[in-house]
């Protein structure tokens, strides 16, 4: 079969849709064995006994690992350290905690044997109630981030017009289609090969080396394809360490793939949030004070914080801003960054409050935002490296038909449906880290680029190929970008929208270097400076030339404030009798510098909007505080949006290069695709109905009773 592939198509698209792309769980190693986890059924306490007799005698079972027979992991022998040391404790920190691993010759046999493991506990009182735990937060002296104050604290309280509201969000789970897991193969001489689902092969390598105290070079991590990560695969979880332990112990390759319900308790989540925003403004619409206090949820055994209040510090031009951020330790599993991480949480509160203020002032929320849009970063008092918000507002509002919007809520009715428009802004750090890339330019006309980065879906290889193609004038189908292999030149994990900027800069440097080498070779062999590299290499009898370059993190942070921005416009329809909300139009505008790979960039924005619909309308992990257990831990009851929830999505890019950030002029955009989206929906629901829903997700019951 032949497929049409143009230069903007995803380089691995055909492999992905035809099944050729191989994900971690698909690797078949000789003698592969299968691990299945036994999880705690209490929320807090101590394991008193684990009876594995029946399980061990079940057909095909090789062993049952737990804290009772823990295989030695040298790094775990040291006292202290916060990451949970799996099988090194009899403590139960949360319900659904992995406490034993059954390994058998087939998955089915391991699954069955896991049901035969009998565990007894000494239960202790526990607390999983997030909102109740906030009530006496001061007395509890919660940890968090240092408070931020600019000007006068709580200045909003004395403003001419003020609003003060509370916004809440439930736990969300990443739940990519691909279940989490790992294949570990511990061979002779402490040589370890793993097939992982990870956003960082080097980070996974380091994590395993650290626990087992073996050299990093001994560990080969492969993760060529990742079936979605959204942040959950930024960490090497205890269950992955447990699998490596099992392989070391059994001297056999062991595969672990968790079940869907286990995806809710052992690989992180987006923490619940409780946020209070106070906003003050003059009657003519100038913001005079913002106070943003946020509470996030963390675990008792590990701490997790994120940037919930970040954008409040610089997004709007206010003399007075103060923020506070606290985390509430609960007897639940530890959260981890989820797409748009804390900023998406914070944006929902801030951007709802901004909309509330615009309404209080009887101003168009777009005009109100424009009026308070700062020229320079008001927190750092330095210019933005680039910021085209006003243009983004203009383009997006024209596309969605903002002029049809009425400032008075509930003004547009179409049969049983009320129609409203909402807008919200998203912002995320346009950071650049350090990465190495090796380039091999061959006399057969091809270029191979190598870096130990990952592609969890954004199209890393596609973007890198396009950067190289433009610099070296080589068609993309002659370029291969190799990634997901820890033996390649090092690169950071894929997260925080930094890969294109970080790895792309190294690709840029490699290509510039290769180009100058070719030019030198051409000159030396009396060839024209514009000669094709194939001819130059052949003339010089070189089968290939290669170069490795390391890009550095951006040094201009002192002089410029570097961020990517997004503006989301949505139109919603709200059914007057049933409270059902349908997002009927979406226009997302990305202001993230030069767009390197238009097609995959657009896909990123579409994916972010779909995730945003989930955050706004459907996603909520429900945990029963009486038992500490989730009650909707499956795909039927934890609602990620389906196709029918998603209208056509218009994506607009400002597409102006920002060469301060990197030589491509491109800024990251994976996070901004989602950040702010939920606020736009909530604001549109208010515009449609006059009902302000401050608690996500906006389900029919909340609209009906709002």
């Amino acid at each position, binding site marked *: 079969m032949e497929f049409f592939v143009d230069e903007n198509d995803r380089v691995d698209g055909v492999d992905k849709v035809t099944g050729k792309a191989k994900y971690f769980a698909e690797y078949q190693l000789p003698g592969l064995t299968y691990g299945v986890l036994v999880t705690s*059924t209490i929320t807090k306490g101590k394991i008193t006994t684990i009876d594995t007799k029946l399980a061990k005698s079940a057909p095909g079972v090789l062993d049952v690992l737990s804290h009772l027979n823990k295989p030695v992991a040298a790094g775990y022998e040291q006292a202290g350290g916060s990451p949970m040391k799996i099988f090194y404790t009899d403590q139960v920190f949360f319900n659904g905690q992995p406490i034993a691993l059954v390994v058998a010759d087939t998955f089915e046999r391991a*699954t*069955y044997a896991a*049901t035969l493991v009998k565990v007894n506990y000494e239960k202790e009182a526990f607390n999983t109630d997030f909102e109740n735990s906030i009530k006496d937060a001061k007395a509890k002296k919660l940890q968090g981030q240092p408070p931020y104050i600019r000007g006068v604290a709580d200045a909003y309280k004395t403003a001419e017009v003020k609003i003060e509201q509370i916004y809440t969000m439930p736990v969300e789970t990443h739940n990519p289609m691909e279940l989490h897991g790992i294949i570990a193969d511990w061979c002779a001489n402490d040589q370890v090969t793993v097939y992982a689902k990870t956003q960082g092969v080097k980070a996974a390598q380091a994590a395993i080396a650290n626990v087992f105290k073996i050299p990093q070079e001994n560990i080969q991590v492969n993760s060529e394809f990742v079936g979605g990560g959204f942040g959950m695969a930024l960490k090497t979880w205890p269950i992955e360490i447990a699998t490596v332990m099992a392989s070391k112990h059994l001297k056999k390759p062991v595969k672990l793939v968790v079940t869907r319900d286990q995806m809710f308790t052992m690989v992180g989540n987006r923490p619940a949030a409780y946020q209070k925003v106070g906003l003050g403004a003059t009657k003519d619409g100038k913001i005079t004070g913002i106070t943003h206090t946020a509470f996030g949820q963390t675990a008792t055994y590990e701490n997790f914080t994120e940037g919930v209040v970040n954008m409040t510090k610089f997004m709007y031009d206010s003399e007075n801003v103060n923020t506070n951020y606290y985390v509430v330790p609960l007897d639940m599993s530890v959260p981890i960054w989820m797409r748009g991480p804390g900023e998406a949480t914070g944006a929902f509160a801030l951007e709802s409050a901004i909309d509330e203020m615009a309404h209080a002032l009887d101003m168009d929320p777009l005009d109100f935002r424009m009026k308070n849009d700062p020229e320079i970063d008001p927190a750092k008092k330095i210019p933005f490296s680039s910021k085209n918000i006003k243009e983004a507002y203009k383009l997006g509002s024209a596309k969605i038909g903002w002029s049809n919007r009425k400032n008075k809520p509930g003004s547009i009715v179409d049969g*049983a449906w009320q129609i409203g428009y909402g807008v919200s802004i998203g912002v995320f750090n346009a950071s650049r880290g350090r990465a190495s890339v090796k380039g091999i330019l061959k006399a057969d006309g091809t270029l191979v680029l190598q870096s130990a980065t990952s592609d969890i879906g954004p199209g890393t290889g596609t973007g890198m190929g396009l950067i190289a193609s433009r610099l070296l004038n080589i068609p993309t189908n002659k370029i291969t970008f190799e990634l997901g292999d820890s033996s390649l030149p090092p690169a950071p994990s894929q997260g925080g929208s930094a890969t294109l900027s970080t790895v792309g800069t190294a690709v840029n440097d490699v290509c510039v270097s290769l180009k100058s080498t070719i030019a030198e070779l051409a000159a030396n062999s009396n060839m024209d400076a514009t000669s094709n590299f194939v001819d130059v290499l052949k003339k010089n009898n070189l089968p290939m030339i290669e170069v490795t370059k390391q890009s550095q993190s951006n040094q201009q942070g002192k002089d410029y404030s570097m961020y990517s921005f997004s503006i989301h416009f949505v139109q919603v329809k709200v*059914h007057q*009798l*049933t*409270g*059902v909300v*349908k997002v009927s139009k979406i226009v997302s505008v990305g202001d993230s510098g030069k767009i390197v790979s238009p097609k995959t960039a657009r896909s990123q924005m579409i994916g972010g909007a779909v995730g945003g619909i989930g955050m706004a*309308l*459907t996603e909520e992990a*429900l945990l*029963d505080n*009486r*038992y500490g*257990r*989730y*009650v*909707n831990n*499956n795909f*039927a*009851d934890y*609602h990620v*949006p*389906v*196709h*029918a*929830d998603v209208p056509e999505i218009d994506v607009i890019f400002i597409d102006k290069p920002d060469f301060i950030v990197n030589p491509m002029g491109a800024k990251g955009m994976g996070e901004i695709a989602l950040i702010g989206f939920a606020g736009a929906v909530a604001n549109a629901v208010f515009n449609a109905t006059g009902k302000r829903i401050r608690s996500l997700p906006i*389900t*029919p*019951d909340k609209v*009906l*009773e709002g």
Partner: protein
Amino acid sequence: MINFQYLRTSVVKTALNLLAKDPKATFIAGGTNLVDLMKRGVTAPEKLIDINHLPLKQIELKNNVLRIGALTSNSALAENAIVKEKFPLLMLALQSGASAQLRNVATVGGNMMQRTRCGYFYDTTMPCNKRQPGSGCGAIGGYNRMHAIFGTSEACIAVHPSDMCVGLVALEAQVVIASTKGERKINFIDFHRLAGTTPEKDNNLQKGELIVRLEIPLNNLNKNFHYLKVRDRSSYAFALVSVAAALELKDGVISNVRLAMGGVAHKPWRLTASENFLKGKQATIANFEAAAKLAMNGAKGFGENDFKLKLAPNTIIEALTVAKAKA
């Protein structure tokens, strides 16, 4: 999940004999719910009798009665030409259920036999009288947003999750059931039960019995009908409230009406009082509102699902309004 024996037959009589012999045997058809229940340890049959090859897939209209074999897939039934033309309410109800992939595999009989989606029922570490009689009800005092407002008991407030069954109740279907002793026929509305003190029993199918077909009498309810399902996402989500509504109108007067609700009780909930009220009256919003109000007699919320006391009558009004506007 325990090891189990798997048997298959293409003969109804053999299937019935196999089931009658073994108290720990159960039939499997599409398996879209049963396999989940087995994986979660909610149920642990020792023997599965695969009935997919039994000759029970016919759909035929004979003597003004539509006969539907119990092994007809949900999608085959929804796409059937007779169903589309004569029983479009059933088509809508079927299309509102599950996802296209599930409907391709799920059978009519299996749809009737599916168990509640209450989260406490699915988690064997939590209390549930339906799963383990006497263990308590997790949903009372817990997450009960999806739960029943009609016909509840202290033992159980779960709802039956089917959409198809709501449509069938409205269409006054009958169920033909076979056992080694022969066949019997019951009204569809009497097939499912209220929880009462025996929530472990979802329906009145006796041990050893097999649903062989459904029968629906021909009617004139194929012009002004609607199935409205209110849910948390547009597809593949169970109903918060659903309403099957069908009207027969003569000069704006309602000569015949059927109303049934889903997502509100342990069984599909027929709104007889509302139907009686509407018969002979003008099809006006005022009358729809009065009928919806009547439907709510005896409704009771459990906290999180209190919103259904408002959503249910609103959904009735909207379903009737859309049904009236058709044609």
